């Protein structure tokens, strides 16, 4: 593939589309025909999302099929993943084919699988974190240094202040937790947020101007 197709055309598309959106956001008033025209561009994101979903499905199947083929690590789970994906896909397509599925989740069977299997499995996995946190509390939090000690004390105050038992032990705990959250935490998070925003603006400008080309893949 020529350099023009691989490099220059994607860079031109990024530059043109990026600057149209910048101009629309900062220089065109809401409700004007010119601003409304740019809404067409944002609508194309839906098309890209659907395409990305299809690519994701293919990549997932490919990855797990290769793992099974090579008898790789935990290949048995790859088998379960593929079976689950195919069965759920068939259920969804069946719902569409029989017109039972008027909207995204209307098929009774599709909804049943989601509500009664997926939802509970997902909640269970997430709730297991509580056990790991308890174990980590015993193994990891040590008064090794001043910073670690501050982290430990503040963490303990938050644990006491953000549960009803803290207020029962001493009514000052909830107020301390609230202060920690709204003052030192807000200040730290604000600094992080502003730093991230400045970094994102810088990266966006570099991408629009074609200086940052990492998203196009290796230059070969």
């Amino acid at each position, binding site marked *: 593939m020529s350099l023009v197709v691989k490099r220059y055309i994607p860079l031109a598309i990024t530059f043109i589309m990026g600057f149209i959106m910048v101009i629309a956001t900062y220089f065109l008033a809401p409700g004007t025909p010119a601003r409304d025209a740019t809404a067409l561009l944002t609508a194309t*994101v839906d098309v890209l999302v659907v395409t990305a979903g299809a690519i994701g499905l293919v990549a997932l199947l490919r990855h797990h099929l290769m793992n099974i083929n090579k008898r790789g690590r935990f290949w048995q789970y790859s088998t379960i993943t593929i079976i689950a994906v195919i069965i759920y896909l068939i259920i969804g397509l069946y719902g569409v084919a029989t017109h039972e599925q008027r909207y995204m*989740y209307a098929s009774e069977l599709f909804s049943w699988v989601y509500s009664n299997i997926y939802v509970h499995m997902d909640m269970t996995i997430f709730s297991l974190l509580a056990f790991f946190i308890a174990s980590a509390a*015993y193994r990891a939090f040590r008064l090794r240094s001043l910073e670690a000690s501050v982290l430990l004390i503040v963490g303990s105050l938050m644990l006491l202040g953000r*549960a*009803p*038992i803290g207020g029962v032990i001493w009514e000052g705990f909830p107020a301390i937790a609230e202060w920690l959250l709204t003052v030192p935490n807000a200040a730290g*998070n604000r600094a992080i947020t502003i730093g991230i925003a400045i970094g994102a603006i810088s990266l966006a400008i570099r991408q629009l101007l074609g200086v940052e080309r990492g998203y196009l893949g290796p230059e070969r």
Partner: protein
Amino acid sequence: MPTEEKTPFDRRYIYIVLFVLISIPLLYPLNLPIPISPMSQDVWDATVALSPGDIVVHSFDFGPSTLPENEPQCSSHLFHCRELGLRVVAVAFWAAGGPLAHDIISEIYGEGYENTAAYGTEIVYIGYIPGAEVGMQTFGDSTWDAKGTDHYGTSLPDLALMQEVRSVADVTLWAEWTSGTPGEQQVIQFIQGRHQGENTDWPLVRGEHLLPIVAGSTAVSVPGMMPFYSAGQLVGILNGLAGAGEYEKLVNDVYPQYPYEQGPGLDAQSVAHILVILFVVIGNITWAISKSGGGKSS
């Protein structure tokens, strides 16, 4: 970063102790008093300040993993909105939130609510809008353009309530139930920021009328929201399970028919928090002993 050390015993004993101790208050609630935090009170105050008929957007942007925290938050607030006579437009910018939202709305407005007279006038559920931040931006600019039909296939212009909601300028309050991205920061960036000053009924924040946003999130995400809360961009926050319990308690005090169900969960959370602190203390004592004994700390 803390260094992980091996336990002198099988860590599964810790899991068993935690499991047993949090099971007790779930089976036999301790009924600990629930203090109402200022952040939860702010959500309540922002909601009761609205007038009957005002339009509230409920955005269900979470997945099943955080359902135990997000569901009681949005359910109690949705109930509160219904009781106050507020009209609700529900959306989901997370695909996983789409079916969850349908179930939660059905609990409050009744099973089959989409076939009642109230649907289209008091409540509309638009469903999942794809595109994440871009979907949010489009919805804020023009609700009809974000998605042609509601969750049930009805064209949005055919719904009386949606005739009044052409953009976010027609909305009085945004309730964001989230556990990630897109979430409250994207609503602030792509909706609140783009439409400031478009509705003079919105409260003044630093001289500009801003769309009021209340949010409910997992406790782990709330610290990241604090800069926006202190700046007035978020008017109130329900902080995790504790925030959900606090709002349920506020609703239950005024509307006793709404059950207060988070008590046992918060009791279990209290026990778990105390247990974690105890584990930290015991872990440090054993570490100090092993260190003073001249042995290797791990």
